[in-house]
């Protein structure tokens, strides 16, 4: 089920501004890949290109190739002209940097939102089960089980983020992209999310952007380091290697400086 993602020579533009240049990497199925790097180097930009969400930004475009390779060998060219972005996003879910539950929708309906798309019908008890399972998985169930019918916008920031995670995993995507999912969370919820990721990787492919080195070191199998050559210059992938190697003896001097805090 979980596909492997092959990115070849990917350039990302906002209008005429080249934000990220020449990314080539492979993301292994059923593993966690962490992306680290200084602010503005294009981690979010790269991540959003993986489920074609860059297309909602006017003027944003990509050059290069991203291929999804399923376990049974079928291959999908992500940017192929015959590929529907809606299908891509159904397979590749995303959790955003800032929590974004549907504010007027109830907690329950937020989690169920993805399940009710494209005319899907589920009977009530199956839906109830799935909502509960997703909320439990996101470590939110005990806090909201008595107010499932209250608006999602009324939760605390950290609760909202966990609600978004529950919403994203409820539809069981094959790949889960997470853009600094824990930056609004307390340490306990952060650990819970990390445990959750470790569980999810049994089935899913996970890519997480994080500024937290310990987090990258704790959860990920591989780590990619993005950097900026200078202000106004495009971001690029410096190296991607097994996480242990990145944090002990990386190939690149810049990586070593960054992970050891000697950056800039």
């Amino acid at each position, binding site marked *: 089920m979980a596909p492997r993602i092959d990115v070849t020579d990917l350039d990302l533009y906002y209008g005429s501004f080249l934000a990220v240049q020449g990314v080539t990497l492979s993301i292994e199925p059923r593993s966690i890949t962490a992306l680290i790097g200084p602010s503005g180097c294009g981690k979010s930009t790269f991540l959003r290109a993986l*489920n074609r*969400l860059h297309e*909602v930004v*006017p003027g944003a475009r990509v050059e290069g190739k991203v291929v999804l390779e399923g376990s049974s060998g079928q291959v999908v060219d992500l940017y192929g002209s015959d590929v529907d972005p*809606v*299908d891509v*996003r*159904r*397979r590749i*879910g*995303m959790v*955003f940097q*800032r929590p*974004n*539950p*549907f*504010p*007027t*929708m109830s907690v329950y309906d937020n989690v169920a*939102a*993805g399940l009710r*798309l*494209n005319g899907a019908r589920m009977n009530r008890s199956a839906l109830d089960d799935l909502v509960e399972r997703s909320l439990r998985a996101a470590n939110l169930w005990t806090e909201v089980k008595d107010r499932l019918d209250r*608006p999602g*916008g*009324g939760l605390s920031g950290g609760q909202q983020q966990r609600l*978004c995670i529950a*919403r*994203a995993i409820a*539809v069981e995507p094959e790949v889960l992209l997470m853009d600094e999912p824990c930056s609004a969370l307390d340490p306990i919820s952060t650990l819970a999310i990390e445990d959750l990721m470790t569980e999810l990787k049994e089935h899913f492919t996970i890519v997480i952007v994080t500024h937290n080195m310990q987090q990258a070191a704790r959860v990920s199998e591989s780590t990619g380091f993005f950097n900026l050559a200078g202000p106004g210059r495009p971001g690029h992938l410096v190296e991607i290697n097994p996480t242990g190697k990145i944090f002990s003896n990386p190939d690149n001097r810049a990586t070593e400086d960054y992970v050891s805090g000697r950056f800039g």
Partner: protein
Amino acid sequence: MARVPRRPGDRVFAGTATGAGILILVVLAGVAVFLVTEAWPAFTAPPAALPGGTGLAGYVAPLIFGTLVAAVIALVVATPLAVGIALFITHYAPRRLAAALGSVVDLLAAIPSVVYGFWGIAALAPSLVPAYRWAEKHLGVIPLFAGPASTTGRTMLTAGLVLAVMILPIISAITREVFSQVPALHREAALALGATRWETIRLTVLPYGRSGIIGGAMLGLGRALGETLAIAIVLSTSGGITLDLISSSNPSTIAANIALQFPESSGLAVNALIASGLVLFVLTLGVNALARRVVGRRADLSGAT
């Protein structure tokens, strides 16, 4: 505890804002007092002395009915259309087209109502006559189309449609404004779940824009209730309360009736007209209050952060 010093800028601003608020209330109260004192004789006069000879209620009731029917037709026709236009402009049209279309719709709002009146009587009414005939023949069992179909087309339905075109730009301008402010975060949330464009709109734009739609519709309704000239020109008025929308005997509306009757009225008839104006005033206030309640009810959760 030390008192927080008040800065002069704050004081000036607070003063002008309070002053403006009080001024509005004073003007409103002045209008209300004028209406009540001028209308009073009509309330106390013997029924036979009033125009129509059936008392004030008998005089005003058909006018209220006509006003409401025309306004409701306008609202029912214009609101979905305006929401559709706003959606198209904000979420479907290519940017160039959206800008052009937006200004065309805004332009509709700038056309004086006398022009709408002429358009209604000279173009819309005659072209609707065949449709009215057809409706009388095939839908005659429904009281709304009982007929006899008007031969001039100057019916309640035509008047309502003219009003609909007039309030369309108001409603669509407001909904468009609200729709275009839906936070990108919400849209991305829906898209990332694999929502199609329509599903994205249903999940994010419509809930977020709900209060805008209602507010726009109520503003439109306010304008439709008070519209005078277009109705006075278009509507053929010779009847009382009727559900029939396609005949030429219709009740007038309060505003159009005042405009048409005032020059030829004197004495108690003027008081009766002003009394009907008072009713319109209360009606419009009521609509506004209702809109406020509806919009305010869930405004705290509309996602406007």
